[in-house]
């Protein structure tokens, strides 16, 4: 499986090179790798929209499905604060439920989160929570979706392979997370993180997130045609429980010119056309 993934990634990496001004591997510092991979994973374009489908399969092979549309907009171009909408479509009991997040990247500043419950027409403010809890009951954690702040970990480049920079990330506040450290495999060409391995003490691997498909999505940036290498299929596996979640990202659009005021109570109560079209 890993071999296949690497092949896909290296192929995609070549394609990605067209749109991304990659640097010669070996000349970049750890800091640069971390910043660039953070940008690639979370901040490409000024805004984005896409459909997410998840299939959660437990150890016994029983499956559950999740489906939602995501809208994202960056506040400024500094790879920091972002605003998100998650419009749930499946399963039926959460259909039309909407989750809005104003993500604050500054250390110690909690995200603002709201939930809209359509049956009650209720806008609920959600207390900032443990980001290491499951997102929508899947094997992805909230933090896997919204992004773990790069200031939360100490980063070390432990090796460089033909295709990857391998970073070891040790949490600065170990008491706030369930892992001891994680390894991030960063594609050398695109700087996309393509695999993450989470370890518990001493060196027990218990959780793996692996990119299975990267696609180049065409977009327009400042009037210029560009392509953004985009992860369109990822699998998260919990080795302790035997559960896995496959996440497919489709109908991806970048730089639609979403306005900041979209991410307000008005559109939380009634989705903008941009989300439903």
């Amino acid at each position, binding site marked *: 499986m890993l071999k296949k993934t690497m092949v896909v990634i290296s192929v995609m990496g070549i394609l990605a090179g067209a749109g991304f001004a990659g640097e010669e591997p070996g000349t970049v510092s750890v800091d640069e790798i971390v910043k660039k991979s953070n940008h690639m994973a979370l901040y490409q374009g000024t805004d984005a929209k896409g459909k997410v489908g998840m299939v*959660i399969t437990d150890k016994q092979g*029983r499956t*559950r*499905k999740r489906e939602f549309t995501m809208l994202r907009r960056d506040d400024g171009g500094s790879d920091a604060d972002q605003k998100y909408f998650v419009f749930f479509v*499946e*399963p*039926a*009991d959460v*259909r039309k439920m909407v989750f809005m997040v*104003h993500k604050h990247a500054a250390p110690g500043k*909690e995200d*603002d989160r709201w939930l809209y419950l359509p*049956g*009650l*027409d*209720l*806008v609920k*403010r*959600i*207390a*900032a*929570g*443990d980001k*290491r*809890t*499951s997102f*929508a*009951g*899947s094997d992805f954690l909230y933090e896997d979706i919204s992004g773990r702040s790069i200031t939360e970990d100490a980063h070390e480049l432990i090796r460089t392979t033909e295709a990857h920079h391998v970073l070891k990330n040790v949490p600065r506040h170990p008491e706030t997370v369930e892992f001891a450290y994680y390894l991030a495999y960063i594609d050398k060409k695109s700087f996309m993180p393509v695999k993450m391995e989470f370890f518990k003490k001493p060196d027990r691997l218990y959780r793996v997130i692996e990119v299975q498909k990267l696609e180049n999505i065409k977009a327009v940036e400042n009037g210029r045609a560009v392509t953004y290498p985009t992860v369109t299929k990822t699998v998260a596996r919990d080795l302790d429980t035997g*559960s896995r979640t496959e996440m497919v990202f489709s109908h991806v659009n970048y730089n639609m010119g979403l306005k900041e*005021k979209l991410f*307000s*109570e*008005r559109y939380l109560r*009634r989705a903008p*056309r941009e989300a*439903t*079209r």
Partner: protein
Amino acid sequence: MRFARSYLVITCTLVVLVGLSTDISAAGDTLGLPEGSLEGEVHGYAELRAGCRTRNDPHEKDASVMEARLQLELPASNAWLDVKYKGDVWLDGVTEQVEYDTRELWFFVRPLDFLDLKIGRQVLSWGTGDLVFLNDLFPKDWRSFFIGRDDEYLKAPSDALKLGIFTDVADVDVVYTPRFDPDRYITGTYVSYWNDRLKRRAGRDAIVSAVRPERWFADYEVAVRLFKAIRGSEVAAYAYRGFWKTPANRTGEGAATFPRLNVYGASVRGGIGSGIGNIEFAWYQSVDNESGCNILARNSEMRYLVGYAREIGKDFNGALQYYVEQLLDYGPYRKTLNGVSGRDEFRHVITVQLTKLLMKQNLKLSLSGYYSPSDNDAYIRPNIHYRYSDRISLEAGANIFVGDHPGTFFSQFRNNTNIYTAVRYSF
């Protein structure tokens, strides 16, 4: 027996409809509809729900809830219009009738960049309280809440026009209800209550009859909210003109009425530490009883609420609220009582909500509690909800009323203490 057969018929109908609707929604994806026409979907659920009283109630049936219910939801939209129908039909074992309720039937447009318009039957909410309502004067359905229907049914629909105006200064919501929509208050049909005239608890033996103001455009309600988000905090001011939402009649003679009511209030909600704090107050101006001497109308009141919610563990949330109702013009009110024990000047209520998710968030344990130290009564709602699959969920819970004085708010419902269970198929 006849009833059991009807139950079977309804259940079969549900199964057929569920199958049918799945086909329709599947077909909707493939239909190449022309631009501008409405594209629709069919959703909803079928549910069986049963519950019984755990205390002997001489004025009610043993079954607190007994129903086979089908909810259909038909949303449709095109480039400029959203339409939605949502309706419930259920066989009700308590009333022994087939019941029907249109929960939503509305049209929504966004005609201008700064304007939203929603007209028709709709469910409406605002305010910061969690299961406590101060400036939210939209109709509630307390009987559904007390007998253990889904939380969704706590809100009853309004037939209204909602206008949203969005500006840089603030957002303004105006809800105009051309004919007064009262709460679905306790009448005695499903839930027994304290009856002032009989000076005892009553139920199906003394169904509350109330004269509802029901002249179109004369007995209207208007509710206004000014709303502004300021750096992660939400500030709002509210005004309402209409009627008390539940009937009042302190004389016990003749039918109960809905006296006129104006409400003015404000709220703030925002992050405090790692949690969410909220504060809200409301002045209930009882227009027909400004002196406090009118025994036919309720006194004016001040209502205050302060709350805090935060995560207290992994997938474990807690919320605490403190709520106070202050009866204004209390002196004149005491004099009208003629020695009968009436309400206290202050009613204090503490609410607690705990929610814990387990088994990959498929199992939800929740506990809501209201406790009034001044009335010395309480209302406790434990609930277990399990998502067996994406379509099937199972639920069990209880509504527990505790108290010694039969006339206090929660204590009057003591004999309605019930347990219930439900199975739901969603599509």
